[in-house]
């Protein structure tokens, strides 16, 4: 599948497996978008294909009501994005408009991200869009300028890896748990240099939004790209979306998309098979997504680790996280719960959290935020009454944006406090200096908010 999509985008072969590729969709956000446009201007160049470039503010805007609390730099970045996209003729989805939101949530939602599309964005979680059968990956600032100037990108073809998730998911186990379990098994560098294709019957059965979550965490596996073969579920998800092809064009597009899945005899450079029936709800204990265990598991004890490098890594992680070796992870008290981010802020994620929160109360002393991924997700959730359900339970209902996931707008967890987060990174200081982050699924995060501690959602299912 990688080869099929890749080959369709080759403008020129540059040798040594390196090609000049056509970029079909370039997504800009507030953190790097205006910088790239200004960089282009300073070189005396203009945007090569403004009609294939789309922008929205997400990283540095506040998610408080009325956007109160957007820091000065955030306001400046938003203003610059407005000015520079308008001057370049780039479509921008502004705050409070349908279409605004986390760039990796709006791409699929608007039908901008399509099967077989080559999508780039100056953000590592661009791999999310692979859930629709797109070839999508994050780029740096220099590459961003290159794409603006040329609508093309120089890339070396990655090796291929197939991950087959086989079996039926157990109660309380979600897409997030599958991908965290995989990262725990193969490591945070297990996918480095590969484009990962997720397959197996569990992927065929998984709804599109779950596939987006799985592909989103590909970068945490070390892989720049992750993808799932497009199928009838993909087409149903996309049908009628604003930028998806319509009418006669729709039929032509679907016909082409049906050709994209890997052939039955396709070879991969690496293959991993995961028996999903063995996976329980996951939670991270350390400072890398690979530091993950089942919620019924125990925090690792460095004493039992022979390899000195691994032992030192576990000691460093436990010291940062303030955890006791060998203790059960469930029951660890939490201060914060964050439900949002490009990993888990779609309507299905909010519904999963709401299912746990319904009729219950957030534990005393816990702050819990719900940050929808887009204006559309927000409006749909409100139409279902989820906002009221959450606020009745003691959660705070916020405006769409990246928020605490990367803490670029002062929305941070205070030093030393412990957070259960549906986001993608538990890195040192990621949610704020010295903040301690445990990654988990939306249902698990909601369970932690209710229990006031890391809790096994399976004991709270109705």
């Amino acid at each position, binding site marked *: 599948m990688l080869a099929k999509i890749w080959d369709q985008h080759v403008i020129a072969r540059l040798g040594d497996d390196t090609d000049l590729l056509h970029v079909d969709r370039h997504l800009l956000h507030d953190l790097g978008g205006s910088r790239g446009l200004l960089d282009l201007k300073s070189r005396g160049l203009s945007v090569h294909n403004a009609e294939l470039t789309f922008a929205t503010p997400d990283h540095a805007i506040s998610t408080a009501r009325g956007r109160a609390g957007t820091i000065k730099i955030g306001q400046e970045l938003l203003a610059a994005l407005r000015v520079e996209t308008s001057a370049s003729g780039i479509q921008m989805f502004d705050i409070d408009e349908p279409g605004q939101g986390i760039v990796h949530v709006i791409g699929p939602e608007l039908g901008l991200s399509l099967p077989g599309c080559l999508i780039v964005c100056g953000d590592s979680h661009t791999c999310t869009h692979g859930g629709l059968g797109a070839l999508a990956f994050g780029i740096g600032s220099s590459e961003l300028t290159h794409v603006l100037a040329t609508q093309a990108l120089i890339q070396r073809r990655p090796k291929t890896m197939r991950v087959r998730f086989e079996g039926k998911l157990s109660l309380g186990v979600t897409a997030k748990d599958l991908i965290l379990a995989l990262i725990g098994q193969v490591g945070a560098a297990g996918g480095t240099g590969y484009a990962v294709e997720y397959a197996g019957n569990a992927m065929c059965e998984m709804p599109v939004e779950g596939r987006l979550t799985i592909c989103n965490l590909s970068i945490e596996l070390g892989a720049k790209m992750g993808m799932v073969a497009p199928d009838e579920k993909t087409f149903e998800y996309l049908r009628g979306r604003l930028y998806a092809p319509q009418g006669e064009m729709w039929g032509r597009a679907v016909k082409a998309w049906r050709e994209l899945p890997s052939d039955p005899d396709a070879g991969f450079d690496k293959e991993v098979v995961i028996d999903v029936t063995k996976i329980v709800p996951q939670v991270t204990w350390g400072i890398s997504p690979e530091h993950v265990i089942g919620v019924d598991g125990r925090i690792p004890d460095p004493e039992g680790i022979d390899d000195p490098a691994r032992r030192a890594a576990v000691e460093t992680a436990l010291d940062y996280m303030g955890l006791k070796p060998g203790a059960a992870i469930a029951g660890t008290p939490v201060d914060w719960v964050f439900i949002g981010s490009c990993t888990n802020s779609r309507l299905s994620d909010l519904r999963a959290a709401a299912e746990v929160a319904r009729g219950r109360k957030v534990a005393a002393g816990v702050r819990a935020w719900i940050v929808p991924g887009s204006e559309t997700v927000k409006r749909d959730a409100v139409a279902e009454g989820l906002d009221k359900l959450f606020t009745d339970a003691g959660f705070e209902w916020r405006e769409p944006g990246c928020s605490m996931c990367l803490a670029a707008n002062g929305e941070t967890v205070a030093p030393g406090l412990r957070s259960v987060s549906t986001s993608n*990174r538990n890195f040192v200081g990621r949610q704020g200096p010295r903040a301690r982050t445990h990654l988990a699924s939306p249902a698990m995060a909601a369970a932690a908010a209710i229990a006031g501690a890391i809790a096994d959602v399976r004991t709270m299912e109705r």
Partner: protein
Amino acid sequence: MSKPFNKLTAIAAPIMRGNIDTDVIIRIERLVGNSVRGTLGKWAFGALRYLPDGSENPEFILNREPYRRAEILVTGPNFGCGSSREGAVWSLQEMGIRAIIGSGFGDIFFANCFQNGILPIVVDKEIVDGLAAEIEITQGAGRIGIDLEGQTITSPTGKKHSFEIDPRRREGLLRGLDEVALTLQRDDEIRAFQASDREARPWIHFTRKSA
């Protein structure tokens, strides 16, 4: 466009912890704003380099002589994983780092290095560990030599190791090429591709104007 890179003999500092992510290399707050370039060197590895009160952490290797003057980093596995932020590379470049030797890097970080004239070298873990051990034995006094043209590393005690590098990227570093200018020379090819692609996949090129 960056400065050409060819030969370098310099002090090297080992930072051997695995999975050092770009959030650890530079915090996001330091990158929010349009005029951060030129101010990032002192914020590289901020969480490791400074104590909560803002003073230097004497335990961190880059705060010690002679490593304070290191131009080469010898790194643990999966260095530069995580966020795509090119600011991580800018901060290293601004603190004087010109080459990074490790057994593996985050893919996006790796690409960003070349865009900024930093040479990331991938060699076997045994070689990386050997280099780190030699640096420790010579207490940083032994320098590491890197010859990009000849694709060799000379260890502090004079051992030679060869390394592989993508020829196009090697050429780019040696000559300090500007990729945007080079690609624009192929603009006819880009436009020809788009013209035929409009026939093959019109839905890619058809986009509505407003939401």
